[in-house]
């Protein structure tokens, strides 16, 4: 079901800010996947919604309304008719494009460091929500991440799943790493919880 202009306007009002990098990441991915034609379509969609996001003017380090993050994903989903899997892939690819991630790469020298630094890392991108490294068990090979105070839009669930997996993949050299959202705010849980396992 397509979002309406009304819904878009309401989304913009959501409190919280997000770093401009996220939109540049979205744009970079669409360019790679769908080419210039895809970018044109995306911009066209934005235009239909009265250009809440002007991708050409976005600055990576600037802060923008958190709701625009959802709008960007919704636009992509509608234009290209993506499902959760593709959104997941977008999230997984996002760290590759992110300037901020690249700036923070020094923290990705080990698994512990990655997840111990994760709250700071979240704060570099979002002003809302708290990302918590709940548990790391290197012997049993799993990590549990919890994202609290962040019930914004369900479209973000698969996106972050992909994203957290992507970050983990910098720190673990295993081909068999999996992530699963074990708890979801939109399913009645108090927070989003992600279980990352590897072999």
């Amino acid at each position: 079901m397509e979002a309406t202009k009304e819904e878009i306007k309401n989304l913009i009002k959501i409190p919280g800010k997000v770093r401009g990098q996220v939109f540049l990441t979205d744009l970079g991915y669409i360019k790679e996947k769908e080419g210039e034609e895809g970018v044109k379509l995306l911009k066209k969609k934005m235009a239909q919604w009265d250009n809440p996001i002007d991708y050409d003017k976005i600055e990576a380090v600037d802060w923008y309304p958190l709701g625009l993050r959802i709008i960007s994903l919704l636009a992509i989903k509608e234009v290209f008719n993506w499902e959760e899997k593709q959104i997941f892939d977008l999230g997984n690819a996002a760290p590759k494009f992110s300037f901020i991630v690249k700036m923070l790469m020094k923290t990705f020298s080990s698994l512990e460091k990655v997840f111990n630094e994760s709250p700071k890392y979240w704060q570099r991108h979002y002003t809302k929500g708290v990302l918590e490294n709940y548990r790391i068990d290197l012997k049993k090979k799993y990590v549990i991440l919890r994202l609290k105070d962040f019930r914004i839009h369900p479209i973000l669930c698969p996106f972050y799943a992909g994203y957290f997996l992507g970050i983990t993949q910098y720190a673990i050299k295993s081909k068999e790493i999996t992530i699963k959202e074990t708890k979801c705010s939109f399913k009645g849980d108090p927070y989003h919880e992600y279980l990352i396992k590897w072999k």
Partner: protein
Amino acid sequence: MEKEGKKEQEILLQTIKEDLKDLERYIQEFSTFLPLPVCMVNPLGLIININKAFQDLTGYRELEIIRNKAEDLFLDKKKFQNLEKKALKGKAKIAEEMTLLTKEEKEISVKVVASARKDEEGNLIGYFLAFFDITEFKEFQETLESRVKERTKEAEKRAGELGKSRKALMNILEDVERAWTEVEKEKDKTLAIIENFPEGLLFFDQENRISSLNPRIRDFFKVTHQQLIKKNVKDLKKVSSLIPLIKILGEELKKLYRKELELKEDLVLEVSTIEVVRNEKKIGTLVTLRDITREKLIEKMKTEFVSITAHQLRTPLSAIKWTLRMILDGDLGKIPEAQKEFLGKTYQSNERMIRLINDLLNVTRIEEGRFLYNIQKQDIIKLLKEVISPLKEMAQRKGLKFEVEFPKEKVPEVNVDSEKISLAIQNIVDNAIHYTKSGKVKVSLKFLKEKSHFLFLVQDTGIGIPKNQQERIFTRFFRAASAIRAETEGTGLGLFIAKNIIKAHGGKIWFESEEGKGSSFYFTIPVREKESIS
């Protein structure tokens, strides 16, 4: 105050934001325009960042390569792992030549420089990899190496060939040395033979210059090696002792065979020349000189002995002849027939002895050069008629037909020793009658104007001369087997004497004969001036 502080904070924040943006833009621009392909790798060996030049080199875009293992970019994983190890130990700028694998699976030769990354606290947080495309350099190097290899191979081949050639040359040299030693040996042998050869050897080269001589020559002519070597015939005339030799050789070194040369009373040489040919090409003339002094002496002594003996024998034989004649003629009284018969045979034998002795004496005189010639102008037809008259009677008595043929035209007189020519004709005609049992004997004389000589022919139908003995017919004491078989009488000296007489007059004698059919003897007497007869 609070407001001002807040404003100041806002300005600072704004400034920081702008600085950050500028920094981000700067980094982005730098990354885009840096021509050197670079990537950042984390401590796990995962690529975390690349620049545009890297994308252009490898063909990989950010989405495809980030979070992939850096070692997957290289052909030799182990080599890369070694490099990574060193980089993760904190070493800066470690370079290694490697083969990069592009997205299109193309292999590119690159020089990879790895440099460790550390945070502000000095903790290792990964490493940079920079790539230098050395394809061209590698190609050039490979081409160079290939050329060097080729050239080295060529050089080795040539060296091998040279080695072989050298070996072959060494073998050839050894063979040549061996052959040379043999040649030297042979040369020494030859030289020794030449030096010790009992005959004198004189070798003239193609320009008729003396190129070698042996010691005998020096002994014969009392000359030194230097006087003769490299001298031509003209130069040799200046050496007085050589004049007699040069006289008989002539300037062109004419062909000689056993020509006698008396240098002095106690030195007589026999000279022969031999044309020396090699590969069908004349290379010179060899003159051999044999000392026949002793032989000549022996011959002289022999001749003297024969002469003396013959003279000594002739007197008593003549006495026996006249005594027997008187007895047979009855001057000393009549004798019985039986005694007459025996004495008749004795008389015949005595006559034969006298003829033999006369012949022997003639031969010795010829050999001693004392066969003197009394040359006078003669009417040859008249002379011939006188000679053959008794011979004609002898032939007819034997029952042989005797024919004579003379020239019809007027012929010139001829300078001859009439006694000697008569003897020669007599010997030849006598032989013809003697060796013909039946048939005829023909004597003819012709004058050949164009050749200015008389041609005598004595033809018979006698026993003939066997072919294998014809060569010796004019030698002393030779009698053909057919003559011996026919049990005819003869001394074997008649033709020898006839030949010498004809030769002395400047004529020639020859014959044709077939055993059992007869012989034809020809001889010529030239019409010459008296002075030219030897």
